[in-house]
């Protein structure tokens, strides 16, 4: 299969990036509510970590659909640019943060030479995005001022969130989308058609 991007791959990445840019912004609000709920229990900062996986999800969805090198990184970066252009609380540095997260997600696919898109690789991608992004946020968001037990807990929760929300739910969303037939022109859709044909010939 050709590894170079077709124009329609790029436009799709862009559409996904823009849509998720808006969703990402929305989830800042969700995080705030979680923080407010958890603060009386002494676990405030964990609020954001619980849902942190949502902020990697476009990487996994785009990569899973298009299956070419650089897709996870680019889609995440576009989402971050969208957030900044729409106006976010984290400022323009969010673009860098998006790039770091995208890079983290891309690593999982790079390790398998962009050939394997099985569920465990998608989950692994969510984990690697969490793993890479944490040190970056440690630096930029001033986690340094937190107590160390809290930092460790935050890290573990972020890894889990990356695995479940980004990896697992990302896959489910992309599969649902593929079922509508609009992705038939992309690798994910072709895989579904092939599976379909196989099962019908077996029958």
């Amino acid at each position, binding site marked *: 299969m050709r590894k170079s991007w077709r124009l329609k791959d790029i436009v799709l990445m862009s559409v996904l990036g823009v849509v998720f840019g808006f969703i990402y912004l929305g989830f800042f609000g969700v995080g705030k509510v979680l923080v407010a709920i958890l603060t009386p229990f002494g676990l405030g900062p964990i609020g954001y970590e619980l849902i942190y996986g949502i902020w990697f999800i476009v990487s996994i969805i785009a990569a899973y659909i298009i299956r070419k090198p650089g897709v996870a990184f680019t889609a995440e970066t576009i989402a971050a640019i969208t957030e900044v252009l729409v106006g976010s609380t984290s400022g323009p540095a969010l673009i860098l943060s998006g790039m770091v997260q995208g890079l983290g997600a891309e690593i999982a696919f790079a390790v398998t030479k962009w050939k394997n898109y099985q569920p465990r690789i998608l989950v692994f991608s969510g984990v690697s995005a969490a793993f890479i992004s944490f040190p970056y946020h440690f630096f930029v968001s001033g986690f340094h001022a937190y107590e160390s037990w809290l930092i460790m807990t935050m890290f573990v929760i972020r890894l889990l969130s990356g695995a479940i929300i980004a990896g697992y739910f990302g896959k489910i969303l992309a599969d649902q989308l593929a*079922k509508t*037939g609009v992705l038939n022109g992309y690798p994910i859709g072709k895989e579904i*058609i092939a599976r379909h*044909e196989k099962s019908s010939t077996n029958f």
Partner: protein
Amino acid sequence: MKNHQPIFELDSFSFSFDKHDEPSLNNVSFSLYAEEVTLLLGASGSGKSTLTLCLNGLYPEAIDGFTSGDLLYKGRSISSYPKGVINQEIGIVFQDPESQFCMVRVEDELAFVLENLSIPRSQMKQRIEHVLDIVGLSQYKKHNIHQLSGGQKQKVALASILLMDPQYLILDEPTANLDPISSIEFIETIMRIQKERRFGLLVIEHEIDDWETYAHRLIALNKKGEILLDSTPKEGFINHLQELRSNRIRVPKRYVNREIARPPSSEKENKEVIVNLKNIQFNYKNKQILNELSFLIKKGRFCAIVGENGAGKSTLLQLIAKLNKPVSGSIDFLNIPLSDWHENELYKKIGYVFQNPEHQFINQTVYDEVCFGMKLSGYSRVETERMAHQLLTDFDLLSDKWKNPFSLSGGQKRRLSVATMLHSTPDLLLFDEPTFGQDAYTISQFMRIVMQLNEKGTTIVFVTHDMDLVDSYCNHVLVMQEGNIVYNGTPKELWRRTELLERARLRIPYRLRSMNEEMTV
């Protein structure tokens, strides 16, 4: 005309999306020439759009498809040209005005084309202004494309193609999403330019009445993607009428003895009022959309709301369905104010079919989609299954019942969206432009279903641009203009109000146009 070298030569050309698939184009052979206007006809799914993208060199590469046979452009195989060369000599205007542009402003979109051609910057401004002048959009240079009307968008698409000074131009249903007047304007614009520039023209269109007079030639494809006919339009429409029609191809109305549609019946006039609007005012973003509207619709009517885009038709329909709230005034449904209706009860009695049927789909399969409303209404499982089976049979969807609703064809989606409204027999069904962008066969099949519902007592109200539909089905018509109702009465009476029709940008139905022509001749 055919003494020139052909622009395109196809020899036993076939195309399929997948190796194992049935080909979408099957062993097609013909040539296309400069200066010639050709109509390409075929039912939905006969491979017309695929053919255009093959001619343009984008297929098979863009989708990894498979071809066999020869496709030559100016005597050379199309695949031997470097990327982009063919695209710049062959222009296409596509159907959907919403998805042809990559830039925000008109000027930038046109510049994008010139940049692709590496035209020096110093010439760009002048070329852009010139081409906007040709298509009549000079004052829109700095406008945002998404704020233009559908007709204007298609003219921008045409302008960007003209900038390439193409050898050959392909129009892939460019007027399918336009209202009748915009459609005529578009056709006149392009034919005027064709006369001056003398490029070859391939026109794909479902509604060909207005194109036929300009065409030199007719090529028809059958369902299997094979050539059915290649002749002059006159010869084709006169001598092969039955063949064309049996392949679900719509022919110009003047070649068909019109079936007399149901005469708008006034005998079984019902006195009861179903919807009653009084002094309705509606604003959106501080702009007045509807202005002091009052009218009533009687039970059992088949009523159309017509008028140009932006007149407030869809807004009005949504108000009747309680999807919007008026600023002032009152709406009664079955003599009870809308505000007193509980939503669950109301939407058992009112159905609403949206312009884009996909908006209404909630479930993963066609079957679940049909059952959804029944489950909400608390029918038993046995009952639900029985009703669902009946509905799917009536709407010709039984064989697709486990498909995802989004993967259906346009006509099937439309039928499904109506079926989802019929879990309880609604008293009132509202339709927002139900026939937009559909082919002839789909429209007639759809209207048959709606007629049957109306005969069972459901009141029908629909927004449309198609005056032929209004003429043959409706017994009540409301004309809107700039947020006002400027006519409220029967279609028959409306066709006599020439001055009013012109003001509201409406076109009289074909039946009367042809009568007028006969009278003048």
